[in-house]
């Protein structure tokens, strides 16, 4: 996996230069370069706008979960709040710590946000030529998934360099902690994706979507992989159950302690863009991408809307964004050791076992339905486990030992 990551990073860097990418990795280079550029601009513009409004939506939804109203003062029902936030964060005093490594200090948030933005263009939003006669994706790479993870992993460098360049021990500790947890989760993330990739036989996101259109959504065959991917992508985007990188309630902050003004906003931006990318990747990989299942398109009269491009992708992205906010409004933050134990002790072995099972199914040419049954069995097993652990025996010694009779 380490080797693969290294290779991925290399390929990712190569793919950054469009000219190189056009020669080496583009499957069907059909769109003219100016169109690719325009679409890249649109994606980046869209992502930044989505980030801005995501902050508003998140604040409003979290407020409603806490039975409050949330920001509603700027503009009609608070719709201009992101604008006000942007103006505020741009015009705030931009501090650079006296002993910071100035170059790296300035560079770190840029690295974070740049590499966060770079992955979204791979996600297909419709069939070929659906974007005014052009393809509804920026670039179509055969190494698609590998590129996505290689590039989004570079964002960790932003975090690490930020902590290091701040020349403050708390920032450094925070950044070490964040990079350690992110790299740990990266492991389970990568392995959970090996199984679907093996099954589909392609890393190309477009082909993964096509495969799902023909054979049914991958979530049916790959439920454990889906669950692991969902959890780990939350950790990758530093979302609440795993948001130790900036545990604002108990720490001053993590790697971003010394950052202020627009540099701090850039870190936020990177984090939200990771989140949006994750909520676009999850449906692309497991929930049929921009398509709805084939049988729905057969329904008379209304069947047509199930094959519309864009629509379903946006619906699915919105669903997962909502899900992430919902989780943030509900769950508490894991302690650091729990975080690591959960990744290395639970998710990683589970991902490995599932990978071996599905590799066996693929290698021996067993029918696809076997995987569906295995998925179902794992779901049943999970529910049984949930039911068994539902009411813990209050007298049983807790994992941390019985302290004064109180179950910790």
């Amino acid at each position: 996996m380490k080797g693969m990551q290294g290779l991925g990073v290399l390929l990712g860097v190569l793919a950054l230069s469009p000219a190189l990418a056009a020669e080496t990795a583009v499957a069907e280079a059909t769109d003219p370069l100016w169109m690719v550029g325009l679409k890249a601009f649109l994606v980046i513009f869209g992502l930044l706008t989505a980030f801005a409004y995501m902050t508003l939506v998140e604040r409003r939804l979290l407020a409603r979960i806490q039975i409050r109203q949330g920001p509603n003062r700027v503009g009609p029902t608070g719709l201009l709040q992101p604008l006000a936030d942007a103006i505020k964060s741009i015009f705030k005093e931009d501090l650079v710590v006296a002993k910071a490594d100035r170059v790296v200090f300035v560079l770190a948030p840029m690295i974070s946000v740049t590499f966060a933005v770079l992955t979204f263009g791979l996600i297909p939003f419709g069939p070929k030529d659906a974007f005014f006669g052009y393809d509804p994706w920026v670039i179509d790479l055969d190494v698609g998934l590998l590129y996505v993870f290689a590039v989004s992993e570079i964002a960790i460098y932003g975090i690490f360099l930020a902590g290091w360049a701040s020349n403050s021990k708390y920032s450094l500790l925070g950044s070490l902690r964040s990079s350690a947890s992110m790299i740990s989760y990266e492991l389970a993330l990568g392995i959970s994706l090996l199984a679907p990739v093996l099954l589909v036989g392609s890393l190309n996101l477009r082909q993964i979507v096509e495969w799902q259109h023909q054979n049914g959504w991958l979530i049916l065959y790959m439920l454990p992989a889906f669950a692991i991917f969902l959890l780990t992508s939350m950790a990758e985007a530093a979302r609440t159950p795993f948001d130790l990188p900036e545990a604002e309630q108990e720490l001053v902050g993590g790697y971003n302690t010394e950052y202020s003004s627009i540099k701090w906003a850039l870190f936020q931006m990177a984090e939200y863009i990771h989140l949006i990318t994750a909520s676009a990747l999850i449906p692309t990989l497991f929930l049929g991408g921009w398509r709805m299942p084939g049988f729905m398109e057969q329904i008379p009269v209304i069947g047509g809307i199930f094959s519309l491009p864009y629509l379903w992708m946006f619906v699915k992205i919105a669903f997962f964004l909502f899900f992430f906010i919902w989780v943030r409004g509900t769950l508490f933050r894991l302690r650091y050791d729990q975080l690591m134990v959960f990744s290395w002790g639970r998710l990683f072995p589970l991902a490995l076992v599932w990978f071996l099972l599905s590799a066996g199914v693929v290698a021996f040419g067993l029918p696809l339905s076997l995987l569906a049954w295995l998925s179902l069995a794992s779901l049943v097993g999970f529910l049984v486990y949930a039911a068994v652990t539902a009411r813990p025996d209050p007298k049983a010694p807790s994992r941390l030992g019985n302290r004064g009779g109180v179950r910790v």
Partner: protein
Amino acid sequence: MSIAALAQSMGITLRALFSKPVTIPYPDAPVPLKPRFHGRHVLTRHPNGLEKCIGCSLCAAACPAYAIYVEAAENDPENPVSAGERYARVYEINMLRCIFCGLCEEACPTGAIVMGYDFEMADYRYADFVYGKEDMLVEVEGTKPQRREAKYTGKPIRRGYTVPYVRPELEGFKPPKTK
């Protein structure tokens, strides 16, 4: 923390998401106050119109913040101001010193000073926070800045609260109309 408990808590937050927010958008909507709210003091009158205050200064003595200043004078028997022998010629409360504890109300032997409901007293000058009789008698509506604003704009005084009912001690006090 079991998985079942996690699922249960997700359900709780989902239900909360669709419940009505408890937020009161205060400057836009009035705050519902309880009848015993400790707001700006009211100097009440007897039903025949005479002031209840007899200028005994017990309120000033009880005041832990030394916010009250009373100067008493003899009533003119022909044309009395209060029901007693004497009345308060000057009755001032410094609202910046007042801690709205209500001890003045408890000390008052005639029930003249009663805690009211007005709380919107933010103003610009120190002197404007000293409320005299003309600002606190029961028929006076609103606070100093509110009345000043109403005078300039020509609009009725807008008080940012509602009360379900006025307690009997505040007889004669007219709260803003509850919807």
